[in-house]
């Protein structure tokens, strides 16, 4: 290295941009002296398609755009963009043409130095191995990444955290019959047998069967005669996996947890299996048995933990959405049952409809309420209105207590407009479809994602069928829906950079739901309704649209991957928020994402744009926006 070379400015520039930012300081320091600089005027070719690059180009200032052989824009970027890196790494031809769209200064890194850097830094090498647009791989990678953490989390769970209730014990000198009574009353399958504070044995259901009944022992005998004395125990700090191993090796089902001789409780094989399954099934079961609203509220607080468990287990966003939806359904259903139990049987049959994301099986954490009441046409307002208003209010306030805020647009059964007989709903559907004002399209788009939750399913089926035929045969309505679906902008700027809020409470963040997930939902709804499918979930709608010939399989696959990526990103964000004691929202800060995530986020938004363009070509949306 020559002395007195001070190219600090260029070093600092590189240090501020990926993938150079991942290089060790000494490597970064020596790098500028190996580079050269070239200048390209606006309009000049920077790197032609089909040429095998001999060097890596880094935009120092100005801007370039990359276009594929069809002339489609692939990327547009300014300072920091690397051109030709992937092709140089693989020794293949550059697939896209790069042209300067502003006067551009480029740093040039010779192949030799480039390959050395790839050997020096795994991150640097990985940056050029990742091919853009392969969202599916990215999602799989992400899920695998979090799955590894999950395994670690399960391994790291301590037995003390798994003890579910205060220990139920019985004195060693008490009669066996007393032990049996206690177990029945407490609905437990085992008892800790104590001598004062000290644990001396355990007694299980199985002991009562084999050692008492089958052996003809007098139930008045002391517990100490039939218990398992000096049972195997674990301390509260033992790892869950160790406890599981103990149970399996000794072929036992109960393991007392003891802290310095003092019993803390009992863990069972079921407890450990619950841990493994993150127990959404148990949660749903518990909610369905909840005796009152307060218990439903208490149990619902476990939902974020369940979702966190799903993320750790590498569950897809689609499956996590189904689980969250199932728990949400269980909550709403239980609230309805409890309300009915207090109000008495309904005066006319009704159906409780769930709308929006839960209707699509895509519920995230912290959603607004979206529901409606569909009443039988025998409904007479003067006689029946009070009952259903009361029912709606009870469920809505219960949901609010659980943590689902009321819908700001009043799209809830408490609103008389969203609580009406079938005939009135049919009229609404007809009106929405025939005279699609912006407000009508907005209302319809909420209402067209509906699913039967409770009550008479025949009512829901009839309404859904009416919706389906009405929408499919109304090209003007579909055109308006198309205009709406094509109008939302993903937060992607002119240079294909991520656009964040500049100021205010959401500064430096972008809205994954408004700018991403919801746009895909709208696109899928349009294609689904056009195809006449009864499916409400986004991914199922896309599949049916492909089957009906309304959407190309490639674009549908891209949309599915983009949806999965965005939804998974949101899921993880929400789990993190909940863990930090914050309310789950949809706003993420790109600055906190890895470069892989940022790149795939851009790709996902790019897919949405492509799909919107396709819609604009197919439907006469221009005049409608």
């Amino acid at each position, binding site marked *: 290295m*020559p002395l*007195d*070379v*001070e*190219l*600090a*400015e*260029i070093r600092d520039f590189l240090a501020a941009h990926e993938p150079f930012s991942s290089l060790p300081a000494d490597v970064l320091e020596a790098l*500028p*002296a*190996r*580079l*050269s*600089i*070239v*200048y*390209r*005027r606006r309009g*000049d070719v920077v790197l032609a398609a089909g040429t095998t690059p001999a060097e890596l180009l880094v935009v*120092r*200032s*100005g801007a370039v755009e990359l276009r594929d052989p069809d002339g489609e824009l692939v990327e547009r970027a300014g*300072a920091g963009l690397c051109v030709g890196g992937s092709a140089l790494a693989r020794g293949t031809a550059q697939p896209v043409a790069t042209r300067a769209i*502003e*006067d551009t*200064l480029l740093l*040039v890194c010779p192949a030799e130095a480039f390959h050395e850097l790839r050997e020096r830094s795994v991150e640097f090498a990985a940056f050029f191995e990742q091919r853009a647009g392969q969202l599916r791989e990215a999602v799989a990678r992400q899920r695998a990444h979090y799955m590894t953490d999950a395994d670690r989390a399960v391994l790291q769970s301590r037995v003390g955290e798994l003890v579910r209730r205060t220990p139920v014990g019985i004195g060693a000198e008490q009669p066996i019959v007393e032990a049996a009574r206690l177990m029945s009353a407490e609905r437990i399958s085992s008892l800790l047998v104590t001598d004062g504070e000290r644990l001396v044995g355990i007694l299980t259901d199985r002991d009562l069967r084999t050692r008492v009944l089958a052996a003809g022992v007098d139930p008045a005998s002391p517990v100490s005669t039939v218990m398992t004395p000096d049972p195997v125990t674990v301390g509260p700090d033992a790892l869950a996996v160790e406890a599981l191993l103990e149970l399996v090796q000794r072929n036992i089902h109960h393991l007392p947890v003891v802290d310095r001789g003092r019993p803390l409780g009992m863990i069972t094989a079921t407890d450990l299996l619950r841990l493994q399954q993150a127990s959404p099934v148990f949660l749903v079961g518990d909610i369905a048995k909840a005796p009152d609203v307060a218990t439903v509220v208490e149990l619902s607080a476990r939902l974020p933990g369940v979702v966190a468990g799903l993320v750790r287990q590498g569950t897809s966003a689609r499956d996590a959405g189904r689980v969250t939806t199932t728990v949400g359904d269980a909550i709403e259903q239980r609230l309805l049952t409890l309300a009915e139990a207090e109000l008495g049987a309904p005066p006319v049959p009704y159906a409780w409809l769930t709308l929006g994301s839960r209707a699509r099986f895509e519920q995230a954490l912290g959603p607004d309420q979206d529901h409606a009441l569909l009443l039988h046409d025998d409904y007479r307002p003067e006689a029946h209105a009070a009952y259903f208003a009361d029912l709606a209010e009870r469920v809505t306030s219960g949901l609010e207590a659980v943590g689902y805020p009321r819908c700001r647009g009043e799209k809830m059964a408490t609103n008389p407009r969203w609580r009406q007989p079938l005939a009135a709903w049919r009229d609404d559907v007809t009106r929405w479809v025939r005279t699609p004002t912006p407000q009508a399209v907005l209302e319809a788009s909420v209402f067209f994602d509906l699913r039967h939750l409770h009550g008479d399913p025949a009512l829901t089926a009839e309404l859904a069928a009416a919706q389906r035929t009405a929408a499919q045969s109304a090209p003007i309505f579909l055109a308006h829906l198309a205009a709406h679906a094509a109008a939302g902008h993903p937060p992607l700027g002119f240079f294909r950079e991520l656009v964040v809020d500049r100021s205010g409470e959401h500064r430096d963040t972008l809205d994954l739901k408004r700018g991403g997930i919801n746009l895909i939902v709208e696109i899928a709804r349009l294609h689904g309704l056009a195809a006449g499918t009864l499916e409400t979930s986004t991914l199922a709608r896309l599949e049916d649209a492909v089957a009906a010939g309304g959407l190309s399989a490639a674009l549908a696959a891209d949309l599915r991957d983009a949806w999965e990526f965005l939804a998974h990103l949101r899921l993880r964000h929400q789990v993190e928020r909940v863990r930090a004691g914050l309310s789950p929202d949809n706003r993420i800060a790109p600055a906190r994402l890895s470069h892989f995530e940022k790149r795939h986020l851009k790709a996902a938004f790019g897919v949405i744009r492509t799909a919107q363009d396709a819609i604009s070509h197919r439907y006469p949306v221009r005049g409608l926006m």
Partner: protein
Amino acid sequence: MTSADRTPVEDLRLLAIDLETSGLSPAHDRILAVGWVPVDGTRIDLSGARRHLVRQDEPGDAVTIHRLTHDDLETGRPLTEVLAELRTALEGRVLLAHHAPFDRGFLDAGYRSLGQPSLRGPDVCTLVLQRRLLTPRGEIPRGALRLWRARAHYGLPVARAHDALGDALACAELYLAQVAELRAHRPVRLRDVRRRVPLLDRLRAWWKGRR
């Protein structure tokens, strides 16, 4: 006109230089630091980038501009070594500078003070080129010919550094931009970009060199 004058800019080898001095007068002020970077055709070769501090006892007023401290200058190398190295770096290259007469003036004085011949050959001045490029567009706004304003004209990045190497590099980048503009219209040779020195000045330089 020499044969070198017909060299296309694509094949032209230059050395962009910048001096930090203790003042504005070659007769009374001294060279504090020299920075340079080679330009091969239309490509800047950073491997040849150098910055040398010149050892001295009293840096003078320019210290505040270049943020050079007494310690910096005491650790510098003797002028004779620095200028010898510059002469080697310039072999086969055309001198390139922004406001070249200024740098040339100090270099001539420096070599003269060491009893050595001054640098020969043509030079390319980005300030002159900028004036020539802007003139057809009408009156040139005040300050438009200054290095950083000229760079801004081409959308080149604003640097915060202001040392001899940083300015030499800034000048080299400006040259690439200027040449790119010239080449967009027709082929460009050295004679199209080199600074034209009036006959009287050339005679004067020749006379000074003789003494």
